[in-house]
């Protein structure tokens, strides 16, 4: 396709050992009608500056690796199009709230530790079915947790949540939504009360609701959290009422 126009990308660069803090570099890339921000970045890497580092993989919004801050908002760069920004410039920074390893690459270890901490697996007690039969689950029972199983671990919700950005100990939206994904699964027998009903877990959330706005997969973590608050509160008032 003939290049008609171009758009300026202002990209945050941080080279440890070289920069004390991030600096912006400017690149001029073609403004193609179907280019995502990620296409702009790969253009930079392939033709203009091979030293730019960023993560991406699937380029179809499912692997969760390409989250960045685009003009101040947390976005999946493979699903955000350059044309959205008209004449530009487009400012691309790493996801807010996470330590920056280099350029647009952030440290996600703490996030992964949080995911693991909520016991994100099916907890069962007693006899298991043999591997010849499945546990029955009706479409309605599937529906009860399906939405919370859609999380791609892109961390946009953490970046959008002021509570997390101010206090990195906050368990945060995706981890709580993941816990609820299992809590609400008819095959699961746990309620994860010990991890979730904590000051730094559901009670840390002040219902800003930005997590839900930022989520590209409509997981609605804000809802997951508020629902668990109610569950946990009722369980505290009525200690014998588990789930």
């Amino acid at each position: 396709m003939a290049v008609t126009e171009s758009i300026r990308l202002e990209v945050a660069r941080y080279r440890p050992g070289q920069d004390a803090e991030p600096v912006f570099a400017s690149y001029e890339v073609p403004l193609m009608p179907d280019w995502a921000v990620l296409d702009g970045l790969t253009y930079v890497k392939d033709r203009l500056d091979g030293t730019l580092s960023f993560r991406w993989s699937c380029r179809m919004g499912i692997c969760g690796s390409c989250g960045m801050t685009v003009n101040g908002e947390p976005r999946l760069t493979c699903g955000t199009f350059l044309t959205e920004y008209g004449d530009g410039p487009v400012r691309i920074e790493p996801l807010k709230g996470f330590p920056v390893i280099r350029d647009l690459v952030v440290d996600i270890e703490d996030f992964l530790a949080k995911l693991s901490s909520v016991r994100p697996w099916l907890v069962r007690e007693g006899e298991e079915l043999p591997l010849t039969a499945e546990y029955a689950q009706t479409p309605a029972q599937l529906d009860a947790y399906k939405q919370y199983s859609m999380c791609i671990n892109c961390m946009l919700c953490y970046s959008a949540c002021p509570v997390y950005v101010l206090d990195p100990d906050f368990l945060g939206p995706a981890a709580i939504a993941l816990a609820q994904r299992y809590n609400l699964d008819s095959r699961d027998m746990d309620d994860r009360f010990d991890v979730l009903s904590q000051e730094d877990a559901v009670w840390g959330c002040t219902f800003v609701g930005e997590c839900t706005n930022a989520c590209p997969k409509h997981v609605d973590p804000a809802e997951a959290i508020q629902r668990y608050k109610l569950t946990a509160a009722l369980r505290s008032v009525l200690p014998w009422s588990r789930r």
Partner: protein
Amino acid sequence: MTAPYVRGRDRLWFARSRRYTIFVLRELTSVFVAWTVAYLLLMIAALTGGGYAGFVALAGQPWMIAVNVVALAATCFHAITFLNLAPKATVVRLDGWRVPAWMIQGGNHSAWLLVSAVVAYVVLRSP
């Protein structure tokens, strides 16, 4: 040498996006909730301790009216946002069908109107 960069605290985070600002405003309505309660307590004190006339005079001061107009706006804002958010915590399922949020919200707002009408009636009905 390879230390990651950790951004410092952003003191003006609430000004970074319109939605953050709205959130903070929503939370700050609580100050006016407290104020409204205090104002009503003042009135009760005037009623029980005698001095109702003094209270009426105070309430008529322009600055007081101004404060209360703001309090009215704030408590309305509180009511709208709070009643709208309620369905998030309470997912109602009937026979596997999830009652949509707007229905719950609609119910909440109707309740608000009803309660307001009852209160107004009790206060204003001729003695």
